[in-house]
């Protein structure tokens, strides 16, 4: 059972989705955010004690204007880890969260010994420019995020009624807060120098990728594998960038191999 708790970090109060029993696992979510019902989080909670902090501004959590650049993000993640009392937890991150996890492991290599990066952002390959999610309207997103676009679109719009003006305003406010925050490290190009820091990562690292990821296509997986010394790549078929939603069991199984 995943529940929402609030902890005090030095700069801001942070909401954390937490639950399960087992070894500690720190989960860092992607730019789209995270809900308590998230299938991956719930599946991981069957084997781990899961801690998934929401980035400030996500959900209905407090914004933090003092977190501006990549170092601020990384130190904030470390502050949260410390506030949670975690010592060398397994660190798992998806997309933007994967970028944050990789940065954490590079900046604090002695604090992270097992790392799972699920189609992380953070690199840029000129030959494979990533689509610009910041210039897309919501209905364009499923095509770059999902292997099964139709099913993905249904997942994304479940419970949404854009003809309801109150809903629309809440959606716009949340979107601005969440993606505004994400944009600090992802806009206009999600590269804040991680490529030059990957060599510092000491953790045993698992790279998990959806075979038909159209947002961070497979050449990015190769670039991460080449950049991180002790890394292994697992490519999951019939999954796109949202592989945690599309092939939850396969992702959990892969992460299990790190434990």
């Amino acid at each position: 059972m995943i529940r929402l708790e609030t902890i005090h970090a030095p700069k801001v109060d942070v909401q954390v989705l937490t639950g399960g029993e087992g070894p500690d696992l720190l989960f860092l979510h992607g730019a789209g955010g995270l809900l308590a019902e998230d299938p991956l989080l719930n599946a991981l909670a069957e084997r781990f004690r899961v801690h998934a902090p929401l980035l400030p501004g996500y959900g209905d959590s407090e914004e933090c204007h003092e977190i501006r650049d990549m170092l601020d993000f990384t130190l904030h993640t470390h502050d949260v880890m410390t506030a949670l009392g975690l010592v060398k937890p397994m660190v798992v991150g998806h997309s933007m969260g994967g970028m944050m996890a990789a940065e954490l492991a590079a900046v604090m290599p002695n604090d992270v010994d097992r790392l799972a990066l699920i189609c992380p952002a953070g690199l840029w390959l000129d030959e494979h420019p990533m689509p610009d999610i910041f210039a897309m309207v919501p209905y364009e997103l499923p095509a770059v995020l999902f292997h099964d676009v139709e099913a993905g679109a249904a997942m994304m719009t479940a419970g949404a009624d854009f003809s309801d003006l109150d809903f629309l305003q809440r959606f716009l406010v949340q979107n601005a807060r969440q993606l505004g925050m994400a944009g600090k490290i992802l806009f206009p190009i999600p590269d804040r120098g991680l490529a030059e820091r990957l060599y510092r990562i000491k953790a045993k690292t698992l790279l998990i990728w959806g075979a038909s990821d159209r947002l961070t296509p497979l050449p990015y997986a190769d670039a991460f594998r080449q950049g991180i010394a002790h890394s292994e790549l697992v490519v999951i078929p019939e999954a796109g960038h949202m592989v945690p939603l599309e092939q939850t069991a396969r992702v959990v199984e892969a992460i299990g191999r790190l434990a």
Partner: protein
Amino acid sequence: MKFTWFNLMPWPHLPDDFRKQHRSVWVDIDPKLYDPVKGHAVYNDYLDMLEYADSLGYDGLGVNEHHQNAYGLMPSPNLMAAAISRRALNAAIVVLGNSLSLYNPPIRVAEEFAMLDVISGGRLVAGFPVGTSMDTNYCYGDIPALTRERYQEAHDLVRKAWRATEPFAWNGRYTKLRYVNPWPKPIQSPPPIHIPGGGSVETYDFCLDNVYSYSYLSFSGYIRAKALLQGYWDRLTERNEPDESPYRAGFAQTICVAETDAEAERLYAPHVNYFFNRCLHIAPGFADAPGYRTIKTIKSGALSQFSPNFEEAAHMSWGDLVEGGFIIAGSPDTVRERMEDMIKGLHVGNIFCLIHVGDMPIDKTKYSTRLFAEKVMPKLRNQWAEYDNDHRFWCKPLDQRATPGPVSARNGSEGNGGAQ
């Protein structure tokens, strides 16, 4: 009243099927649509128009800043302002404006605006827009959630640079300079400052706090602008500000004048259609980068309330555009009546007249410009006579200003190297 002849400088050669074949007029507009040889004629026509407006007694000549935009060909408004300042010798040079967060370091703006003010003899009216999200975020890569903080810091730096009597150090978050000491300094101390805004309370307050004029540069006309500008005046009342001078606000309006209403439609309808149909065709994904608007602004409902529906305007008839106030068009009498409604209704003293529209050629533009200057402007001049002494928001040129000297070697004693 202050009438500024304002030119957006659209590219007039977008194809007829632009809307169908291309996704956006801005940001990722097809580069193949630009032709620099045609551009040579276009720029020179546009500069001629501005200078022509000066000769007819307009109070100001307006230019602005856009990037990667086929309806606004001025990535550097300062270049255009400099180009006209030596032939247009009377009107204010209204640069509306420089997007502060896009200049690195921002004292570039303090320097260039000072140059313009000095060259023109104190005729600069300076604009400090945040800049649209398309320009600032998508074209220039500024991080949306940090744009306003960067803007604010740049603003404070420019103002201090103009004010300072000694070199100073600036340890900002976004700009660090050991020696801030721009040369030259502006003649006006400081030049009057206008802020283009889009309905956020923060910008209303910013203008009131600093005694800046609030400009609403909309393309959707005076009827739809009512709520936004009323918000500004309401804010002023809420804050118990001492005066309601109409020069605290400005408004941009598309205006087309002919001898009769029918002639106006016949002459200008195709060009107005070109503007609303092609020039405002912007990919929706570029409208607003997440984080660019403050949460307070989104929550206030300002966006849904004020954001115009250009999709609708693209297919409107001439009659609908006139009726809806998108354009003020017709005979001098018709235009004067509508202008009076606008000036009183919005309570504005600064009017930015969008008289060149879309792909309007220079002869028609001059015709409309002249009719407005001769048959409309004089009748509106004294609309706010009771505020004639409010000079806070307009330039104060030198009484004795230099004029350009002769350029031909044959006309002067210098230049022939002393040869007999």
